[in-house]
Every structure is written in structure tokens, then in C-alpha cells.
């Protein structure tokens, strides 16, 4: 495994910037420029690079879709709306026809994690092979359900690619195209599954839509083991801890605080905050990242530093 690309990072529902959001970014940028003039595009680019990410960029709004770049075969976690730009990028890179194999790992069957599949262009290309891996017995039924009338105009039977389903066994390592993939049951309505991907030199954990019961020490230990020594843990940090244990208890999500604690206990190298709350704007998400980095710093003790990232649509992480 070489890199991880985030194509969709938003939780529950895709969102987009509004005209007001864009206007506020322009005002923030012009305020920061404070009347400066830029003689060359390079000078302008240099200035833009100094602006906060919440001004010069955006976390994006596509729902969960993460690509793990490994070798010849493609590894993808979840088919949220981020699967649409991912599919377009694959067609642009490989062209048609140029048969590819896609391994898709589905955390659970909720809509925000499946909705991108009908828009994933490689599924319409004859010669492609798509293997959909998961642990839910109704995985195939759920995928087919959203691609039939009256939900969608194109029926599942119109897929040009060969689509296969692989029902995985939790807690068992499955050797797939050079990577050991181990699913783990997580607490979420209707169950969700995290995936631990292990190659010879790198480990990535994808753990979204998971609520952590803070008084369950057995489950905590199981989770620490699941995250152990990971180079990157992609973690559901949708709510604040206060929300997750009070008004949003039993909603099936977690917090940045629990992410830091589990990654520290597991000796993980990097934590990517993921499945962002749709109601949070770029300024709020930027602040959340800064606070999470501070929390890691003040609770680190003698341990090596845990690098904290906040995933955004378009982010590529080199492992």
C-alpha cells in the first residue's frame, strides 16, 4: 500500500458550499491581502498558500468513499457520493476499454455509504470486474435495491462490468490481491464493519460509523488491537464527545477525543478525522482539527507523537 486518497469525507448526507460560504471565503482572502498587489501568478499562488485551509480550500461535501492505492487492483472503502468523482478519475486514467478490477469494501448498508455506486462509471464498462466485499447478509440486495424503479432510472441489470459479491467473515484475515483484510463488527444501527488492511510494510484501518461505549473495557481492548501499530486510522469523528455521550448517544458515531485515545493506546502513527458532521462548515472543521492536535499534544506523555489529519475530499496521504 502506497497512498490513501479521500474522495468523500462527509457523514450522513452530501453537502456543498453555498453562495454565502464562497462570498465569506473571498472576503476573508481579500481582507488577508490587505490591499497587496501581486505582480506574477507565482506571487499570487505564494500568498494563497499562506491562507488558512478554511479560506483557500474546503473540506468538501461528498459522502464516504476512500481509495487505498496498492498495486494493479483497486481498493475502495464505501460507495458514498465520492464514488462519482473517483469513477471519473479512473476512466480518465485508464480509458475504455482497459479492463480493471475493483475491490469495494462496504462498511454498512446505509444510503450515504452506497449512493455513489450507480454513478461509479466503471460499473457500466464491459470488461471491468467489480468485487463488492462486506459482512452484511443483505449486501447484494441493498446494492440492487437502489438501482431499480422507482429509485433510479437505470436498472442494476444494465451494469456492463462483471459484479461479484464476497461475503466476508468478521475477525478473519482475507488475503485479497496482496493485502490481508480483516473486518471487525462495530456498534451502529444495523451493524457496521471496520476494515484493517495489512500489506508487508503498511497498515491502514478504515473505521467509520462506529459508536464506542466508553464503559465497555473488553470492546475497548478489541478496538485497540484492531488499530494496533496502524500507519493510518480513518476514524468517525462526527460529534463532539459531549454530544456523543448525551443527546446523540446511540446514534452510532464517535468523536475526535475517543479517536485520539484509541490511537494513542494502539500506538498508531496517524489519525484521520473522518465522516464530518454535515452541519459543520470549513471554519468549524478547521477548529476541530486544531483542537484535536492540541488534545494529542497535552495527553501524549512519553509516547511518540500521533499525527492528526482531518480528511477532505481530494486529500492524498502518502503512507
Amino acid at each position, binding site marked *: 500500500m502506497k497512498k490513501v486518497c479521500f474522495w468523500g469525507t462527509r457523514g450522513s448526507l452530501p453537502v456543498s458550499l453555498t453562495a454565502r460560504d464562497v462570498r465569506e471565503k473571498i472576503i476573508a482572502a481579500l481582507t488577508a491581502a490587505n490591499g497587496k498587489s501581486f505582480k506574477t501568478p507565482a506571487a499570487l499562488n505564494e500568498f494563497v498558500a499562506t491562507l488558512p485551509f478554511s479560506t483557500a480550500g474546503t473540506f468538501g461535501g461528498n459522502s464516504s468513499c476512500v481509495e487505498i492505492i496498492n498495486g494493479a487492483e483497486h481498493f475502495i472503502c464505501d460507495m458514498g457520493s465520492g464514488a462519482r468523482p473517483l469513477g471519473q478519475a479512473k476512466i480518465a486514467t485508464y480509458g475504455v476499454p482497459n479492463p480493471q478490477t475493483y475491490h469495494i469494501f462496504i462498511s454498512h448498508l446505509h444510503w450515504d455509504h452506497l449512493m455513489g455506486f450507480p454513478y461509479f462509471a466503471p460499473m457500466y464498462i464491459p470488461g471491468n470486474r467489480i468485487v463488492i466485499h462486506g459482512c452484511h447478509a443483505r449486501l447484494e440486495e441493498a446494492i440492487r435495491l437502489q438501482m431499480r424503479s422507482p429509485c433510479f432510472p437505470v436498472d442494476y441489470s444494465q451494469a456492463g462490468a462483471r459484479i461479484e459479491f464476497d461475503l466476508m467473515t468478521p475477525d478473519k484475515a482475507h488475503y485479497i490481491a496482496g493485502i490481508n483484510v480483516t473486518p471487525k463488527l462495530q456498534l451502529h444501527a444495523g451493524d457496521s464493519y471496520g476494515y484493517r488492511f495489512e500489506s508487508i510494510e503498511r497498515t491502514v484501518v478504515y473505521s467509520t460509523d462506529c459508536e464506542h461505549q*466508553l*464503559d465497555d473495557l473488553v470492546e475497548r481492548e478489541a478496538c485497540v488491537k484492531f488499530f494496533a501499530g496502524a500507519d493510518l486510522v480513518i476514524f468517525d469523528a462526527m460529534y463532539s464527545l459531549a454530544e456523543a455521550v*448525551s443527546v446523540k448517544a446511540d446514534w452510532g458515531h464517535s468523536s475526535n*477525543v475517543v479517536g485520539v485515545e484509541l490511537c494513542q493506546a494502539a500506538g498508531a502513527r496517524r489519525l484521520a478525522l473522518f465522516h464530518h458532521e454535515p452541519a459543520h462548515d470549513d471554519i468549524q472543521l478547521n477548529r476541530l482539527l486544531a*483542537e484535536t492536535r492540541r*488534545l494529542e499534544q*497535552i495527553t501524549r506523555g512519553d509516547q511518540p507523537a500521533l499525527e492528526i489529519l482531518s480528511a477532505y475530499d481530494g486529500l492524498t496521504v502518502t503512507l
Partner: protein
Amino acid sequence: MHLPTREQSGVLIVSVSGRIDHIASEEFTKALEPLLANCIPGQPPVLLDFSGVDYISSAGLRVLMIASRRAKGQRGVFAIATLQPLVQEIFAISRFNLIMPCYVSLDAACKVLGA
């Protein structure tokens, strides 16, 4: 876990100290139990003196939330005071400062709660 208590201005002050992590939180829950049982109308408000606490984890914060919720359900008064700066930061980052009454000093808390 031992939680020494004393009364000041009609408020029951409970001294908490050390690290309240995922292991200690169970003991913390047990130690709070008899204090919460008496956290009812007609009894002194319960104020946790956190000046001796140098770390609290998510599990420890959850114990506080449950204690606060229980006290409220019994119409008792439950609050925290004198957080160390680092613990105060943990409260802010976790947003517990928004759901738990926290006072900067025991005197300030007693002025409000003991009235």
C-alpha cells in the same frame, strides 16, 4: 477511590485527585454513588473540587455526565470547580464545558450554590 468530603457555606465539597482514565472511571463511578444518592432537595449541593485532577479521559467525562444527569433527575445540585488548566482544555475540546456547570473557584461556586 477515596473521595474526602467537607462542608463549606452549605455546600458538600468533594476532593477528587489523580488521573481519571478508562480504568479509574469505574472506581470513580462507585465512589460517587453514595454522594449522588444524597444529592436531592433539602441536602447540600455536591461540588467536585477538581484541583487535584491532572487528567480525565472520555470515560471519566462520561461518568460526570451520568452523575450530573442523575442529580438533575433527582432535582439535586451537582457541579465541578477549580479545573487545572490542562483539564480545562480537555473539557473545552470535548465540549463538556457546555453541558457541565464548571466554576473557576470553590468560593465562586459556594456563592452561587450555597445561596
